């Protein structure tokens, strides 16, 4: 079970799961809106009046905390649950503070890695909300429906990511 599954086969099966979700539940995959809704829920919990923000009240509160819990929140939780189960069953669960590729380049101190991860998460959600989706909503669901928005978004996800990863891991002073 440690052997990883063929990515073409696993991807094809994921495509069938998406089609089944559309056929049975009428839901396409997506994830990024949950983090805007989650932010609203946290703000409300600590006493912030989220009604002052147009975004959280727009479209009858579609992006506000009042829309939780909903299909997408449970989908995002489900991915974590499925991953945990699969990792334990296949004995591939492994506590790792810093990814191998990062450690090889920047060292294994968690502080820099965690700060970068936080900054990355912050920037990517602002980008995803601007674009109207992430690789699930625009990539998987958008391209499967042949939406123009999906093709444009996925292309620029890759452009931004390619530029950033190559700058981050650029050769320095002849070191590779």
């Amino acid at each position, binding site marked *: 079970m440690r052997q*990883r599954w063929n*990515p*073409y086969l*696993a*991807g*094809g099966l*994921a495509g069938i799961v998406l089609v089944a979700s559309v056929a049975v*539940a009428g*839901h396409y995959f997506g*994830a*990024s809106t*949950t983090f*805007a809704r989650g*932010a609203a829920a946290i703000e409300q919990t600590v006493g912030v009046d989220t009604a002052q*923000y*147009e975004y959280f009240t727009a479209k009858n509160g579609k992006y506000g905390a009042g829309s939780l*819990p909903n299909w997408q929140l*449970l*989908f995002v939780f*489900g*991915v*974590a*649950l*499925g*991953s*945990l*189960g699969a990792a334990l069953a296949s004995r*591939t669960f492994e506590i790792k503070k810093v*990814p*191998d*590729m990062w450690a090889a380049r920047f060292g294994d101190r*968690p502080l820099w890695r965690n*700060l*970068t*991860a*936080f*900054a990355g*998460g*912050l920037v*990517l*959600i*602002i980008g*995803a909300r*601007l674009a109207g989706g*992430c*690789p699930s909503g625009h990539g*998987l669901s*958008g*391209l*499967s*429906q042949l*939406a*123009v*928005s999906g093709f*444009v978004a996925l292309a*620029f996800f890759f452009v931004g*990511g*390619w530029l*950033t990863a190559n700058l*981050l891991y650029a050769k320095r002073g002849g070191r590779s």
Partner: protein
Amino acid sequence: MSLIYGLVSGILFGILLQRAEVLRYDRQVGALRLLDMTIFKFMLSAILVASVGIYLLKDMGLAALNIKATGLGAQIVGGTLFGIGWGLLGYCPGTAGGALAEGRLDAFWGLAGMLAGGGIYAALYPTFKATVLSWGNLGKVTLPQAMGVSPWIVIVTMALLFLAMFRLFEKRGL
């Protein structure tokens, strides 16, 4: 019921992502550095199968499309910004929770950053609405509609393109 459907499809998707090792930072950033195409093999295969399934359902009247509006400002500026964050984090909104669940602790900080980003986006929304989001809005349109051809022509073309990419990936051992 909608909640249960969400949970079940999430669990199945999570199992597939974890077992194909798509959740890992090294695979995600490996793809951005053009060193390891695992995540694209997974994603493009999923898109191919799903596009056939979804358009079959649509042709049989069993499902409706639900597409996002095209906004050139939104998807070009937002998409690039997403990519920059993705390159720094190495996980996506859909995969970060799964990465944390298989023991990748740095994903926790990515998730925290995403929640912070959600709050900041809401605070800046009026500015975005007046600028980026108002640029180049083309409405909800699919590629076959824009080109005036049958969706099946686009699906077959896309399939041939993806298969050529898969062949290239395997040839180069990516």
